[in-house]
């Protein structure tokens, strides 16, 4: 135990730990909506879409976060617009956007000469290089996102379980755009820690685990945040202890927590006893 604490002696490791916990809990909480609305594939796409934004920003000399956020928002709006078009299956549009933005990112990156090192950092994250500003940005974005989700919680849950009812009561479809933008902003802030490819792990696995222990959306958000934070701590510690890639360790830690919880829940039979009928009020 003493030895494990020693791993966090340096400022670098302490900052990495704080970032992992912040990102983990934010993603875990937002993930409740990702799982509820079946958005994991969308999440992967947004994560890939930050990539050309980051490359463009570094060419122009802007903040990488701003570039990623701008490009991801652009794509979120584009996908939202195709959702109304019935000739195009949403998942196909999402797939085209995913592949295209990723290709664009790689092409832009290859036009610069530093092709390899930064690319790997964007793809699989580099939590050890986060600085104080990254921590502040994560906190700020996290507060805004969680604040918006909390403010519209009732409406979002209604929209998820009864879209027609929500429409009939006059709630605008823009609500969905807001949710998608919140998910997008969360993805963008998680990229420095776990990278574009693995941010989907933090945005869906802790929330999936939380669903094993609770059916209420609000409780699932809290439980998801706890699972996400725990994944961050466990993954980072394992990565420092055994010298593994940090982002990948965090993703694997979240999967490990899922299987442990699944085993415990199956063994004690808690899920079946606590199972609430689907049409019961879930808020």
């Amino acid at each position, binding site marked *: 135990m003493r030895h494990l604490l020693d791993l966090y002696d340096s400022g670098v490791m302490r900052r990495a730990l704080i970032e992992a916990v912040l990102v983990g809990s934010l993603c875990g909480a937002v993930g409740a909506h990702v799982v509820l609305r079946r958005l994991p*594939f969308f999440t*992967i796409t947004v994560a890939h879409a930050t990539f050309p934004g980051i490359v463009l920003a570094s060419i122009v000399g802007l903040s990488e976060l701003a570039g990623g956020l701008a490009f991801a928002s652009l794509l979120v709006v584009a996908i939202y617009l195709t959702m109304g078009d019935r000739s195009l299956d949403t998942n196909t549009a999402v797939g085209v956007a995913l592949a*295209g933005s990723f290709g664009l990112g790689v092409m832009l990156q290859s036009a610069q000469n530093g092709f390899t090192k930064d690319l790997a950092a964007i793809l699989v994250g580099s939590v050890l290089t986060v600085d104080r500003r990254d921590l502040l940005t994560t906190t700020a974005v996290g507060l805004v996102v969680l604040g918006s989700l909390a403010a519209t919680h009732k409406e979002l849950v209604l929209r998820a379980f009864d879209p027609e009812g929500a429409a009939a009561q006059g709630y605008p479809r823009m609500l969905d755009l807001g949710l998608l933008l919140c998910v997008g902003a969360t993805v963008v802030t998680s990229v420095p820690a776990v990278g574009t490819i693995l941010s989907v792990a933090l945005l869906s696995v802790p929330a999936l685990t939380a669903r094993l222990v609770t059916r209420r959306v609000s409780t699932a958000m809290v439980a998801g945040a706890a699972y996400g934070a725990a994944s961050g701590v466990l993954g980072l510690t394992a990565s420092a202890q055994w010298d593994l890639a940090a982002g990948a360790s965090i*993703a694997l830690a979240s*999967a490990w927590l899922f299987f442990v919880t699944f085993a415990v829940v199956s063994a004690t039979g808690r899920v079946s006893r606590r199972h609430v009928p689907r049409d019961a009020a879930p808020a």
Partner: protein
Amino acid sequence: MLVTIRFLTEPFTPGYMQRAFAIALILSALAGVVGVVVQLRQLSFMTDALTHTVFPGVAIAFVAGQSLFIGALVAGTASAVLLTIAARSTRIDHDAFMALVLASLFSIGVIVVSRNRTYSADLTALLFGRVLAVNSREILETAIVAVVVLGILALMYKELLLRSFDEVGAEAMGYSLLRIDLVVNILVALVVVAAVRAVGTALVVALLITPAATARLVCVRLGRLVVASVLVAAIAAWLGLVISYDTSVHHGVRLAAGATIVVVLTAIFAAVATLTAVRSRRVRRRTLAEVTS
């Protein structure tokens, strides 16, 4: 006119460009056809998941010094089985469960590669492929995979169509839905495997989704969809290679060949989508005018 023709053909004088073009064409034909199935069965997410889950196999084979092709083949088939089961899970939300499987397997790949000291260059090569460095043996391997995959698709054409449009009917007639899904997903995995060296695991998803989506914008019938999809893929492959070669050789801007193909593919999709959207709006307005007048 002559200048344009030279611009389009001159890049293919060096041998490596001819080989790149050959493999790109084979992959276009293969991914174009399978892409229509992907769209029909709504397997976009599954396809993206497979491109990530093939990665650990490639990574392990790479570190162990074995053939990447074999590594990808084993990982692709195994993860296709795993993902098919995950997609059918009823107890757990299957989208999130697929995300779990893909993230875990991809992470294992990253960890395996990161054990090598100089891993970032290898990681990019594995993710994005090296279409300009393929040799004739690799072209042959890809061609064999293409023949096998297209052959199996032709054999199960009837069952596949039935399963897509009448699930209950197919089950009532005694077909095993699980078995059909399993075969289709393994075929998609095989395409990913075949494309690993040329365009890498990360970009093959574009070949499998975008041409078919473009085709879907302009036609509905299955036969036409297949033809249009293959055509779009082949044209994008050709233009992509030409643009990448021309900018690198004549303008000193190095554009990665595989990525350029993907960008061209997406540009074609965006152009066709805009055109059809404009046209359908105009048609709608005209019919409206006829009705009201």
